[in-house]
Each structure stands twice: as structure tokens, then as C-alpha cells.
């Protein structure tokens, strides 16, 4: 756009994270529909009388007014559009949402064109909030995110020899970004076997609209296998461990352990 940068801009944004700056200020990382990921300064938000603090928490869709600054824009007003209370109310949904936020943050570069990512993230958060299966929401978001950023995984043909691969004979190669056929996998140290059903469901998630893919019922075991494969792939793409992915698993383990105990107690009561 030619001409001067406007002094003040309005934009919607999803708050991805923040870090502290000095005594009471924060640097807030926002994912915006038109400017991609940007860091902005929010002054005085750590004071209890701050009029913006509560609006600039991660996992909030906000409308912000930004004053153009020399290095970073400064937030002058913030108003919550959507705070996703139904996500906050449940640890499985909340941990899944934290994972989506971390993915969106790690996979984007500041100011880089990230058109569509804001909508992808918003849609996924809305789905989590209304109670869609967390596994389905996370896996479809991962696949859509990879597609939008140019990392679309190859799930049907071998990455080496380009021959179609049957799900039963496929090997999972996270670093290469998809599947290998059995003979090519023999020469690849990093490839691992992948469960055929897990791969078939991932293929369905990649090729079908969400409304159809979302109807597939996943057992806990199948969901865990898909999660393991996709976490390995995401780790290879962002080139680091995703702490939130581990937290998703830890939260689920704690739930399963708790339920197991409850069931054991129930069984005792029955005796």
C-alpha cells in the first residue's frame, strides 16, 4: 500500500501468548486476519486497575486498537469478542487449545503473510468450544495448518519412489513429511511403522470436508496412535519439542488414571 502507514489501526486478533516487559507491561503475540502474526506492547496490563489486562489473555479473540510505534505497535484499546469459556471449563479442551495456540505460534514467522491461519485457528477453537471431539479438532487443524503453510504431508504415495502405498504397507517418516513404501523405508533410519487404520483416518481427514471427517468415531487407542504420529510430524516441522503436545497427553493420562481409580472404587462398592 503506497503512502504513509496509518497512525492508528483497528484489527481483530487471537492472543497467542505474552511475555513480561518491565514492571507492569507485556509483549503480546497476536494472530491477525490481515497482518499475520505480530508482537505488540500492552502497557500497564499487570496492574490490577488495568482496563485491558483481562482482554489480552491468550485464547481470546479480541478487537484491538493499535498505535503505530517505532519497533512495535502499542495497544491503546482492547475489547473481548470471544473468550471461549466452554474451552476454559474443561482441561482436555483447554490443553488441546493450548496446543493449537503453540502450533500456530511456532509455525508462523512474524509479519509473514499468514492469510487464512487466523480463520483456521478461530474455527478450530469454536469447534473445541462447542464440544467436538478434541482429537478430531486437533488432527484436522494440524493437517489444515500444514497445508496452508506449504508443509502438506504426503499420505498416499511414497515420498521416495512416488508409487502409491497401501495403508497396510506404509511406514511413517516424520522428517521427510509423510509415508514411505516398505522397500524404501528399509533404507531410511527414521521411518517407523504406522497403524493402517490410523493412516486411513488421517487420509480421510486430509481429503474430506470436516463435516464428513468429523463423523468418524475414534477409539481412545486409535486416537492415541494418530496423536503419536502427528505429534512426531509436527515436531519435525517446527524443529523443536512442543511442550503443549506433551501436556495434552499428560492431562489425558491423569484423566484415565482418575477414571481407572473411580472404576476400581465402584467395583469395590459393588462387592
Amino acid at each position, binding site marked *: 500500500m503506497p503512502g504513509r502507514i496509518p497512525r492508528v489501526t483497528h484489527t481483530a486478533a487471537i492472543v497467542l501468548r505474552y511475555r513480561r516487559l518491565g514492571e507492569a507491561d507485556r509483549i503480546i503475540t497476536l494472530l491477525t486476519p490481515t497482518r499475520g502474526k505480530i508482537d505488540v506492547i500492552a502497557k500497564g496490563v499487570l496492574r*490490577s486497575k488495568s482496563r485491558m489486562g*483481562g482482554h489480552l*489473555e491468550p485464547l481470546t479473540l479480541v478487537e484491538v486498537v493499535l498505535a503505530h510505534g517505532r519497533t512495535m505497535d502499542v495497544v491503546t484499546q482492547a475489547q473481548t469478542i470471544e473468550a471461549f469459556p466452554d474451552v*476454559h471449563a474443561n*482441561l482436555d479442551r483447554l490443553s488441546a487449545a*493450548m496446543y493449537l495456540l503453540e502450533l500456530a505460534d511456532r509455525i508462523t514467522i512474524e509479519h509473514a503473510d499468514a492469510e487464512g491461519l487466523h480463520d483456521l485457528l478461530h474455527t478450530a477453537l469454536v469447534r473445541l468450544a462447542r464440544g467436538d471431539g478434541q482429537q478430531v479438532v486437533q488432527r484436522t487443524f494440524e493437517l489444515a495448518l500444514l497445508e496452508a503453510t506449504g508443509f502438506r504431508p504426503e499420505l498416499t504415495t511414497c515420498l521416495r519412489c512416488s508409487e502409491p502405498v497401501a495403508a497396510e504397507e506404509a511406514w511413517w517418516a516424520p522428517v521427510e513429511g509423510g509415508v514411505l513404501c516398505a522397500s524404501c523405508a528399509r533404507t531410511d533410519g527414521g521411518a517407523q511403522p504406522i497403524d493402517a487404520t490410523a493412516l486411513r483416518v488421517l487420509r480421510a481427514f486430509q481429503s474430506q470436508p470436516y463435516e464428513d471427517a468429523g463423523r468418524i468415531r475414534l477409539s481412545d487407542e486409535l486416537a492415541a496412535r494418530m496423536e503419536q504420529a502427528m505429534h512426531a510430524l509436527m515436531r519435525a516441522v517446527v524443529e523443536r519439542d512442543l511442550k*503443549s503436545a506433551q501436556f495434552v497427553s*499428560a492431562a489425558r493420562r491423569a484423566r484415565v488414571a482418575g477414571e481407572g481409580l473411580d472404576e476400581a472404587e465402584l467395583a469395590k462398592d459393588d462387592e
Partner: protein
Amino acid sequence: MNDGRDPFLPGASSPIARLVEAFHRLPGIGPKSAQRLAYHILRAQEAEAQELADALVEVKRSIVFCAQCQNLTSRTPCEICTDASRDRHLICVVEEPLDVLAIERTNGFRGLYHVLHGVISPSDGVGPEDLKIAELLARLRDVETEVAEIIVATNPNLEGEATAMYLGRLLRPLGIRVTRLARGLPAGADLEYADDVTLGRALEFRQEVT
């Protein structure tokens, strides 16, 4: 003594520059404040500087984690944990040692504490295994424990909520009541500017006017 240079325009290796640099590394201290502090020390009596230096060294040498509550203390178990007048049925779980001081200032809590030393924050690379959660579980699994309620007093933000819910999930199977600090409007707040979550909680947990 300073190879003829002005001692107040320190070179990179001068003692003044080292002191300024050391202050600058402290949280919330900018370059100007660091210089002001350094020159204050220069102008002060040597005894005052010595006192500061001794205090700094002593705090690093003598402060340890309390074996029970994991708070920072000069002796373990700490004063609060050994105080016989405190209610042993209640443990308040906080993020940081400073939060213990904040709650003590209210004079409204007479139970024990447990300091997590952080909060689950994936974006900063902190997971549950990096906190003092295992120590809390060990404390509660102790056969002699009298604890009946855990008050989770983590901050009311995304990380604090996630930590509180995760603790709730871990502790409920132990048959212990897990509660969370109430959330609402701070003193002196303005409804017009309150965020939706806070205002919603304030409405949900409204109280009878007495």
C-alpha cells in the same frame, strides 16, 4: 589508576562497568537505573556496600527449599510448616514464594502452603514435570497426612487455570477436596472496562448483600 580515563565513563572492563552490568541483569532494571544504583553504591560508605555484598552471598548460601512446602527458607522445615497453631487440614498451593507473602499479608489464612515454583506454561517450555507437583503428591500420600482440602491459588490466567485443573484431576482420586480461589472484580475496578470472563464469574459467584 584507571589508565588516565574518566572513572565515570567506564570502559568495558572497569569495576564500575561490571557493577552497572550486574544491576542491569536484574529484573525490571534498565540501563539508566543500573547506572544510578551503581553510582549510589560508589558514593555510599564502604560498610553499606559490604552489607549488601554479604547479604547477597548469604542469601545464596543459606536459603534452601523447605522439605515440606518447598518454599524458600533458611531452615527446613520452615517456620510456617513447624508452627503448631496452623491448621494442618488446609494446604494453599501457590505459584511462587512471593504469593505466600501476599496471602500471609491478608491475615485470612491459617493453613499450610505448597509452592510449585512456576506454572504449566507450554509457550515457555514449562510442563507439569518441571514443577513441585510430585512433592505435593508425596506430601498428600503420606500416611500421617491430615489434609482435607487443597486450595489452588494459582493466578487467574490461562496457565494458572490449566495448572489448577490439572492438579484437580490428579488430586481428586486421593479423596481430597480441591478448591480454587474465587474470581471476580478487583477493588476499585470499573464494570465498563471489565473483561467478559471476569464479569461473568463475578455474576456467577455473586453474594448476598448483608
